[in-house]
């Protein structure tokens, strides 16, 4: 049946519009062709700037045309890859643009249905499950490429470029389970060298690698655990007698003291691990943290103890006493951090008790110095009494922490007795004055 002129004109308009839209795709395809010296087409290149412009124009006209999206996905991804290899900074944005097009492809059922139909044309008995799997894994496979670049740049010591790819993985809109798998792969890629470095005693670079990873994934438990493990191994090689400055640097590095200007939320790796919600279920991480804190607390205690031991023979200078106090403080700081993860009656509690006792002896020695000044004024006696009180408080803390140490009780009794005598002298001095 013949159609009237109006109907034909309407269809003509539609045909022309379609031709105009599709002509961009056709021109894009032409612009992809690699040609020989005579201008004969040899095959399509993955992209050319001209082709990309045509495909972009076609996409603008018809954003739902999945075939055009496929051209764009291929072309942008290929160009991103070239730019990456050339060190062109535009690569990062180009990768993400391409990923956006690939994400559209994954969602486009018609595209996959078309491939299935084509597969069945190739082989009517073919199992098209392979396409379902390809569709399911496509984004993860694309992002694995960025994990590979992370590894590549970590190995070639280009951490900034690795960070760009980590950012791409972090920003990718993918299911949490997939992202978790990818983060695990990034962790392996970035920190793969750490176990060897630790075994070789290269602790500083090993910690640097982990700090780089933790700057990107601050709460990633395996990284925090490995960080603590390396720090503990490093601490275990250090001597409180010969390496104290290095011990202090290590401690400051893994758990820096914060000044008021710093954000209280900005936690150190050690603090993050200590406060990690999954730490309870991670016995290995908890054990590593306890070991590290014990290791450092013990180093501090032994350093303080060595000053006290020397004081028995050669006297206790003010500098030595201050150094001993600082060492006992160091032991207490780390010991208290680790005590959160220690069982009652553990070695950590004994160490804390010993550090308190050490501080108590320092206070006692200071009180003795004050009393030995020769001129016993009311103010001098008051200072000595204050120091006795402080020493007694430390010894009481030690008694509370230790598991029934009789010797400590005797020391405490002796200090209290001496304080009582001092109080009497103070009263006598008051009346004498």
């Amino acid at each position, binding site marked *: 049946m013949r159609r009237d002129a109006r109907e034909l004109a309407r269809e003509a308009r539609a045909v022309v519009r379609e031709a105009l839209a599709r002509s961009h795709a056709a021109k894009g395809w032409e612009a992809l062709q690699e040609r020989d010296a005579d201008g004969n087409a040899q095959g399509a290149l993955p992209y050319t700037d001209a082709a990309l412009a045509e495909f972009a124009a076609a996409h603008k006209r018809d954003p739902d045309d999945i075939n055009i999206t496929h051209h764009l996905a291929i072309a942008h991804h290929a160009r991103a890859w070239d730019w990456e290899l050339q060190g062109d900074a535009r690569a990062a944005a180009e990768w993400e643009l391409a990923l956006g097009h690939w994400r559209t492809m994954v969602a486009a059922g018609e595209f996959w249905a078309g491939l299935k139909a084509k*597969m069945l044309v190739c082989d009517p008995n073919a199992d098209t499950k392979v396409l379902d799997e390809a569709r399911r894994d496509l984004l993860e496979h694309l992002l*694995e490429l960025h994990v590979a670049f992370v590894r590549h740049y970590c190995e070639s010591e280009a951490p900034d470029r690795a960070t760009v790819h980590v950012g791409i993985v972090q920003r990718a809109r993918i299911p949490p389970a997939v992202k978790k798998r990818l983060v695990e792969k990034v962790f392996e890629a970035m920190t793969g060298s750490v176990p060897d470095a630790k075994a070789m005693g290269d602790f500083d670079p090993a910690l640097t690698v982990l700090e780089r990873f933790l700057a990107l994934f601050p709460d990633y438990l395996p990284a925090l655990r490995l960080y603590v493990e390396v720090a503990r191994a490093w601490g275990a090689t250090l001597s409180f007698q010969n390496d104290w400055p290095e011990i202090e640097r290590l401690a400051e590095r893994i758990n820096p003291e914060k000044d008021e200007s710093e954000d209280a939320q900005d936690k150190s790796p050690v603090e993050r691990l200590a406060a990690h919600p999954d730490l309870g279920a991670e016995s290995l991480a908890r054990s590593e943290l306890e070991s590290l804190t014990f290791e450092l607390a013990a180093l501090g205690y032994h350093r303080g103890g060595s000053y006290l031991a020397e004081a028995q023979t050669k006297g206790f200078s003010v500098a030595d006493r201050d150094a001993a106090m600082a060492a006992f403080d160091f032991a207490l700081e780390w010991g208290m951090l680790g005590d959160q993860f220690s069982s009652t009656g553990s070695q950590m509690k004994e160490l804390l008790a010993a550090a308190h006792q050490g501080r108590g002896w320092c206070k006692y020695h200071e009180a003795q110095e004050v009393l030995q000044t020769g001129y016993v004024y009311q103010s001098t006696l008051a200072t000595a009494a204050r120091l006795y009180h402080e020493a007694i408080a430390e010894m009481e803390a030690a008694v509370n922490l230790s598991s029934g140490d009789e010797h400590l009780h005797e020391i405490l009794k002796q200090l209290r007795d001496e304080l009582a005598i001092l109080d009497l002298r103070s009263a006598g001095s008051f009346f004498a004055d």
Partner: protein
Amino acid sequence: MNLWRRGLLTQNPYYRTPFRIARVPREITRHGTIVRLIGETRKLMNRDPLAHQINGSPVTDAEINAAEPALTDPKRRIIEELLEHAAEELPLGPARKLAKEVAEATAVDPSEKLTVNDLSALQGLAQSLIRQFLEQAQQPSPSFGALELEIVPPFGQGDEV
């Protein structure tokens, strides 16, 4: 298998796809045609190892050997299509169809050729032309009588028949 992680990271996988290496268009699905095209590519390369190049670098035997199973196994081949542009051509089919339909609609049927049976509508025009002719004609000299003895054709011819 991850398509993007098959080769070295430093090699962009979009250039040397099995389709491009074997010179098999993505649109070809028949096994026999694929095998024939691969054979032709091999012959071309045997004749001149530099004849088949991609992005300035010749295709090697190893590459074509690897491309063949990737294209002849439907499972692998269909996955390879993800990295390959589909051919595009101007959508002339609908335009041709429409043009044909329009041509058919406007074509004149020989059996319906226009015939003129009544010329009366031309009478007015004819009279006007006659009047114009007579007015512009040379006037006769009163000394010698009429110039013409008969009406100049075509007028008057009808009267003779």
